[in-house]
């Protein structure tokens, strides 16, 4: 699977891979090798975990043992961070993969009586590096020195000397810093770090937590406001590497069945284009999920892997509901071709949900993805960043040639107006479902509002859902959907 192209590629620079999912992609290989990277953020933003992942993966995956100088006296926390990555600190220490030196800087013990320097720290660091032949170093959090030592002039000079020492010894270092009010870090550490500065942000608004990673500086180049949402879960940190929209994706001419033969017929007899995005909108109960399920079933029957993200109903509910209309998805789940993932409304923000979607796509490498529904993600109350994340996700799916289907709940009224224009413009195919009651008899209607690149039928048809499954009935002439755009049938429609 090709990865999204990072914004700036420094192929001539050596990089130290972090092993943090998504981060190595966006940095074009990792952190600058043999240089100091500053990771800053407020308490709880994940900087210590970031630093430990960098060390642990460095030792276990890339053959680079690492030293951690921990200034915060948080042995329990450090042990827990390492454990959360699936390793035991004691084990790693015994195997000389990791060495932690807990540095205590207690202010009330120290009285400054004349000139001094921080050679003690240098000696400890050098000793630790030599002991395990370390290639990576973490200083977490160096700002503890500021609270412990009064003379900031000496301290600043020594920090400069320390960073220089690290570079001289060709060690790739991650230094953590506490976020400041006006400045990036409380004590302006970013002034000493020329090569790479990463800011982690963790915001909780109305009980929804959102995490973002921003590359403030990379090798002197400003990345501006390049922000990536990230997750912290039981496997560590996952960064979602989707950023600017790259509209240069190959368009496939392969076709995939919609799962409903009569619907395939409306689309040149062949169905959707592979890798295209399909929006299915309609009011409650009009058959959106059933359509998504038919599509999914057809894909699995072709041997393709499907990922079904359920935002509202539980997977078992969906399975049961689909069984009642003769769409049996369970065998595919058992065969491992269909993976359901329930997205429960939780305290993690919508961006985090999208990050999970991205992560699972990377894990399962599906051919088909269904998100049912995306209503919350496109609603008027959704933030701009959620909407832009969704747009980027859709774009990412196209680049990966994953055929995607999104259902959207609309309220009675003109569906075109209810669905945000920005989202619908990303969709190659837009199917609208509607309930109506002409002459008092209720019926369901389906029409293909648009489908790029093909001569699709524009005639509304009746949608019949029964125990026999889903099929399209006759063309409706008494529909109330408004006049479809007149045009000779068979004319190719683009855009």
């Amino acid at each position: 699977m090709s990865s999204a192209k990072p914004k700036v590629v420094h192929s001539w620079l050596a990089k130290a891979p972090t092993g943090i999912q998504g981060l190595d992609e966006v940095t074009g290989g990792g952190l600058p090798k043999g240089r100091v990277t500053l990771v800053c953020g407020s308490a709880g933003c994940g900087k210590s975990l970031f630093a430990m992942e960098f060390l642990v993966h460095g030792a276990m995956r890339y053959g680079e043992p690492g030293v951690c100088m921990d200034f915060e006296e948080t042995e329990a926390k450090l042990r827990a961070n390492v454990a959360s990555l699936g390793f035991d600190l004691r084990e790693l220490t015994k195997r000389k993969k990791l060495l932690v030196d807990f540095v205590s800087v207690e202010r009330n013990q120290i009285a400054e009586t004349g000139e001094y320097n921080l050679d003690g720290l240098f000696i400890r660091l050098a000793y630790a590096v030599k002991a395990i032949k370390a290639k990576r170093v973490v200083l977490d959090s160096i700002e503890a020195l500021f609270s412990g030592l009064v003379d900031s002039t000496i301290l600043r000079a020594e920090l400069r000397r320390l960073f220089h020492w690290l570079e001289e010894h060709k060690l790739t270092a991650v230094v953590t810093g506490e976020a400041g009010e006006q400045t990036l870090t409380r004590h302006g550490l970013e002034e000493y770090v020329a090569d790479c500065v990463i800011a982690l942000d963790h915001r909780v608004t109305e009980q929804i937590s959102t995490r973002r990673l921003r590359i403030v500086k990379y090798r002197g180049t400003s990345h501006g406001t390049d922000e990536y949402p990230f997750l912290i879960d039981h496997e560590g940190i996952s960064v979602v590497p989707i950023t600017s929209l790259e509209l240069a994706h190959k368009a496939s001419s392969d076709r995939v069945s919609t799962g409903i033969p009569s619907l395939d017929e409306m689309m040149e007899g062949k169905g959707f284009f592979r890798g295209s995005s399909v929006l299915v909108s309609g009011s409650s109960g009009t058959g959106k999920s059933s359509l998504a399920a038919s599509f999914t079933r057809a894909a699995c029957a072709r041997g393709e892997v499907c990922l079904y993200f359920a935002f509202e109903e539980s997977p078992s509910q969906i399975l049961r509901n689909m069984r009642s209309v003769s769409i049996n998805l369970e065998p595919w789940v058992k065969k491992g071709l269909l993976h359901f993932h329930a997205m429960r409304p939780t305290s993690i923000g919508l961006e985090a949900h999208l990050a999970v979607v991205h992560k699972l796509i990377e894990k399962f490498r599906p051919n088909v993805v269904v998100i049912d529904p995306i209503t919350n993600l496109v609603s008027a109350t959704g933030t701009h960043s959620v909407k832009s994340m969704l747009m980027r996700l859709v774009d990412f799916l196209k680049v990966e040639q994953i055929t995607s289907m999104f259902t959207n709940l609309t309220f009675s009224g003109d569906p075109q107006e209810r669905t945000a224009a920005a989202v619908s413009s990303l969709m190659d195919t837009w199917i609208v479902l509607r309930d109506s009651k002409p002459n008092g008899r209720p019926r369901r209607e389906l029409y293909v509002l648009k489908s790029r690149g093909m001569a699709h039928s524009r005639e509304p048809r009746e949608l019949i859902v029964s125990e026999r499954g889903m099929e399209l009935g006759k063309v409706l002439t008494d529909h109330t959907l408004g006049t479809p755009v007149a045009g000779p049938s068979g004319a190719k429609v683009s855009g």
Partner: protein
Amino acid sequence: MLRLYIAGHTPNSIAAIANLKKICEDKLHGKYRIEVVDLLKKPQLAKGDQIIAIPTLVRRLPPPVKKIIGNLSKTDSVIVGLDLQPAR
């Protein structure tokens, strides 16, 4: 017992040793024993007393532990820092 940590015989460290000897003679009348630890020779000893600055003077007994950093040129600060009783 007073332990002075140095890192090689730099001007600061030499000054600290000299200052300490003077303070011990003048104010303490030899009541305290001085031990000099050179971390360049024995780096593993830095961890125990949590040494980061050089020079650092550590008074371990009687507790609580007192740590003083600097070349000890400010005599008064040293006395106060060590919480020493002037010898009678």
